[in-house]
């Protein structure tokens, strides 16, 4: 089993290298978060259907309303692709960078990997709430009288709870990504080593 870029001193929970591990972990994390978002209504939270929202973005509201199943599937493909790409960016760029800049997170331990995933989820929550929703979904829904508000503070009938529900959604993504993309030293008896090699060497 080989680690990152041919290194045999790092093992992954899933897959044999960082790229493959990231793709699989990100797919699972995206799927769990997406399904949870569809079930949020059961917990009295705003439903987060990113598949449908992505479908509206590419197919338009009129087509999406007339063909909800096609809209959901097309939007789902885009949404899952985005989730996987964000996961690969995390695994190959952000994960090793955090280890380099935040020294307590340098060691390749499951807990450090997890904390990095949670931090990445929070970053994506900010990107989603500050840019994606207000700048893309807001203007799209404006003609039918549905607002998003600055930083997702007035999405349709909801107030600030949509913002915190978005945090929950992205936390679920980050938690699962951090737990599943977990590079650790291959030698069981060795001490945890620096993250400097993973993803950048």
């Amino acid at each position: 089993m080989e680690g990152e870029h041919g290194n045999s001193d790092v093992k992954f929970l899933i897959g044999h290298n960082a790229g493959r591990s990231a793709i699989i972990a990100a797919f699972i994390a995206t799927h769990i978060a997406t399904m949870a978002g569809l079930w949020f209504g059961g917990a009295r939270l705003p439903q987060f259907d990113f598949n449908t929202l992505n479908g509206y973005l590419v197919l338009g509201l009129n087509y999406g309303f007339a063909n909800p199943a096609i809209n959901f599937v097309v939007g789902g493909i885009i949404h899952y692709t985005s989730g996987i790409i964000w996961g690969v960016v995390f695994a190959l760029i952000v994960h090793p960078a955090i280890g380099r800049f935040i020294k307590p997170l340098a060691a390749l331990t499951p807990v450090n990997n997890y904390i990095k995933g949670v931090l990445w989820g929070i970053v994506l929550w900010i990107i989603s709430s500050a840019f994606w929703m207000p700048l893309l979904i807001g203007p799209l829904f404006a003609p039918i009288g549905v607002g998003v508000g600055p930083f997702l503070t007035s999405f349709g009938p909801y107030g600030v709870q949509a913002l915190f529900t978005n945090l929950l959604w992205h936390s679920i993504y980050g938690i699962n990504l951090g737990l599943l993309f977990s590079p650790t030293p291959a030698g069981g008896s060795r001490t945890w080593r620096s993250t400097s090699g993973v993803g950048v060497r």
Partner: protein
Amino acid sequence: MAMKLAMVYAGILLLGLVLLIIGALIEPARPAISQSGESLIALGLAFLLIGVGFFLAWANPTR
């Protein structure tokens, strides 16, 4: 250090549980919605899951 970190995450988990319970208590019956009730439910679930996830990572599934 590891013990201190575990205590922090236990605190996050407990905070999540408290927020979730308060949110559930102040959330009115359907179809009415409460902004603060739903916000607390969302924040409570987020903290709760982050706390649970930490202990899953702490259990070290790769060992």
